């Protein structure tokens, strides 16, 4: 599906900018001698994405949610449909984009369900997990101070927490699920950057009585999470495609034993096989997105396509490194960036094992 916005994004992410985007959130450690101008590049990219109108909420053509969380449909969404969003996140994944866009879209979705707009263009980071093993379907504990209304919560693996204006805390309180939008630069917010494999921007965040600028019942989270998972699946399909494209190009170019290594069946057949898996995961994702556009309950379809895309992304990035030989491991090359990011992105909205376990009851229901 190519809409004006998808097309505009494709033009924006031209090869030169893509090369920059792939490394804009990457902090190589050993050779860290150069000045870190990446925050400036990230800010520029963010402005570009805002300018393309990508930060609005997805449409909710479903009407009042079946689970009774009942937000009004958003009639005037600036973004097309879920299918378009999946195509957009696929392009972002291929460019290995890292930043608060996907979180911001999900936040916009949750705010829109409550009849609110995003508070400005500063971006929102989702703060969901209390620990790294938890599924985002099971948000961490959150308490609301009965007198001040301040939010208390500890969250780990919050993306780009230092570069957004707001955090949207998704939490479980004694009174059930709850959402709270808090300003990130409030003195009660402390942030520590994780040292991790992706060398990106993941933070440990503590809120000690932070005033919420908006707060709402959180029962819409599971449906918002379902469509966020379709976007994440799109991102992972794109990530896999980015790694695949590098591997195919290298197989055509790299000569060993007097011919391009792509002439060897061991390489060619493996890449051919992966190309089919890539198509399959992509179609599965777009299919789930179309279900969402039809207003269907997409929790099962979303989990299925995300699990498939996550499994593929890890396999693809590993295989891409194998095709590249040692040269793909070197920092100068992009192949290893895909491998690093796949580790985090494949777990980001639930690992494949978690996703499958979570939706198993829905599959049983279908059989009834």
């Amino acid at each position, binding site marked *: 599906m190519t809409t004006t916005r998808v097309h505009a994004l494709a033009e924006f992410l031209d090869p030169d900018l893509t090369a920059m985007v792939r490394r804009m959130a990457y902090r*190589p*450690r*050993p*050779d*860290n001698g150069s000045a870190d101008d990446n925050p400036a590049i990230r800010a520029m990219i963010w402005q570009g994405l805002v300018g393309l109108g990508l930060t609005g909420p997805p449409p909710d053509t479903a009407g009042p949610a079946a689970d009774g969380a009942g937000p009004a449909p958003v009639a005037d969404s600036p973004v097309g449909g879920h299918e378009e969003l999946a195509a957009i996140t696929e392009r972002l994944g291929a460019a290995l984009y890292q930043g608060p866009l996907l979180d911001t879209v999900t936040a916009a979705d949750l705010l829109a369900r409550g009849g609110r707009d995003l508070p400005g263009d500063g971006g929102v980071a989702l703060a969901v*997990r209390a*620990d*790294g*093993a*938890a599924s985002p379907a099971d948000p961490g504990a959150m308490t609301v101070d009965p007198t001040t209304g301040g939010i208390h919560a500890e969250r*780990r*693996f919050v993306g780009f927490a230092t570069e957004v204006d707001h955090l949207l805390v998704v939490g479980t309180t004694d009174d059930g699920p709850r959402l709270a939008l808090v300003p990130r630069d409030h003195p009660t917010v402390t942030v520590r950057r*994780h*040292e*991790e*494999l*992706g060398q990106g921007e993941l933070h*440990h965040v503590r809120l000690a009585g932070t005033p919420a600028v908006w707060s709402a019942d959180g029962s819409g989270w599971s449906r918002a999470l379902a469509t966020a998972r379709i976007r994440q699946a799109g991102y992972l399909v794109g990530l896999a495609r980015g790694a695949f494209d590098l591997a195919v190009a290298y197989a055509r170019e790299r*000569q*060993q*034993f*007097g011919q391009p290594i792509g002439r*060897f069946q*061991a*390489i060619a057949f493996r890449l051919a096989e992966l190309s089919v898996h890539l198509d399959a995961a992509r179609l599965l994702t777009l299919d789930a997105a179309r279900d969402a556009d039809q207003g269907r309950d997409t929790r099962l379809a979303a989990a299925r396509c995300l699990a498939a895309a996550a499994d593929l992304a*890890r*396999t693809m990035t*590993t295989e891409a*490194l*194998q095709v590249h*030989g*040692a040269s*793909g*491991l*070197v*920092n100068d090359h992009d192949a*290893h960036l895909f*491998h*690093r990011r796949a*580790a*985090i992105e*494949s*777990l980001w909205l639930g*690992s*494949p*094992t978690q996703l*499958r*376990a979570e939706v198993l009851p829905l599959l049983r229901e279908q059989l009834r």
Partner: protein
Amino acid sequence: MPLFTPEQDKFRAEVCALLCEEDVVEAVARCRRLPGGEEPELLDVYRRLGERGWLAPNWPVEYGGLGATMVEKAIVTEELIRHGVPDVTHGLSVDIVGLAIALFGTDAQRARLLPGLARGETSAAVLFSEPGVGSDLSSLRTRAEPDGDGGWRLFGRKIFSMKTQFADFAVAAVRTTDTGVKYHGITLFLVPLRNFAVTMRPMWNLTEDRMVDVTLDGVRVGAEDVLGEVDEGWQTVNRFLGLERTGVDTAAKAQRLLDTVLRQAAATGRLDDPAYAHRLLDLTARVRAARLLAWRCVTNLVEGRPDDVQSSAAKWHVTEVFKELAVLAPEFTGLDGVLDARDADAPADGIVDAAYREAPGLTLAAGTSQIMLYVVATQGLELLT
């Protein structure tokens, strides 16, 4: 797995006891938290193993070993890895270069080079790959020019070399004669590295250990530095690369990672969840099988009948199993597994992160998985011929 003799069990316990000493444990922990750009070199624990003859127990006593067998050597490798001691320098110096000198070197070369390696006082590297030259090593371009004095001067560029910045010397594959026949005219040289004609540039990469880009700009080697026969290095190279292919080291790494993952899974209750438990159980079988395939190669060596097909099969299997486990491990540990050793919250000193980054290189180094399968298919199954 061979049935270990009581002496071998006792030897393993002694090695384990040394590696469990407090100062060794502290030194190992320090290695994991080195600042970026620094990496472990010759550790004091190597010297302590070396003074007992334990770094290279399979070498003769006169060269710093115990005169024992490859079984004892493999026991040391397993224990080093099980205790988290960085093993790259040891593997390169003793298992690869040292073993090649022991097998193909002259008595003078053995006497000159092996004792230092066995004592953990010197280390060695390998200079094989070049830009554009990897699996197809016979197309290498680094050349040796006779210096008119019975020696040669070496010119060329070698890449993806490990621990070279710490090494005293390296084994380099160099073209001495260019007849147009690729497999003739290659010579292996023992090249001094602490030399003005050798320059090194780090190649930072996915792992913590840099790879090194080495330029040889006229470094001199003499007849005494030739390993094997002049121009007949190709056969030696092939035997040389097969030597290290027992896979004992990678199998031990897989076991260590699996133990960590299992402990994490038990602590978080995931071991009781069939969604995780069935896969974990399958992985315990595969890691066990990897160790058995690796030890079969050790047994072959001890019995004096090295088997290329079995060693290629083992190398392929253990590295592929390790990679599969390493890529899946964050699934079992959750996002905490992606934290590296420098993050205070990293489980088990960040070994899940380290394995994820190390695994892709293991199916490439010292013979890619594709080359291993080629050996199994051609020599083992008489296919593709």
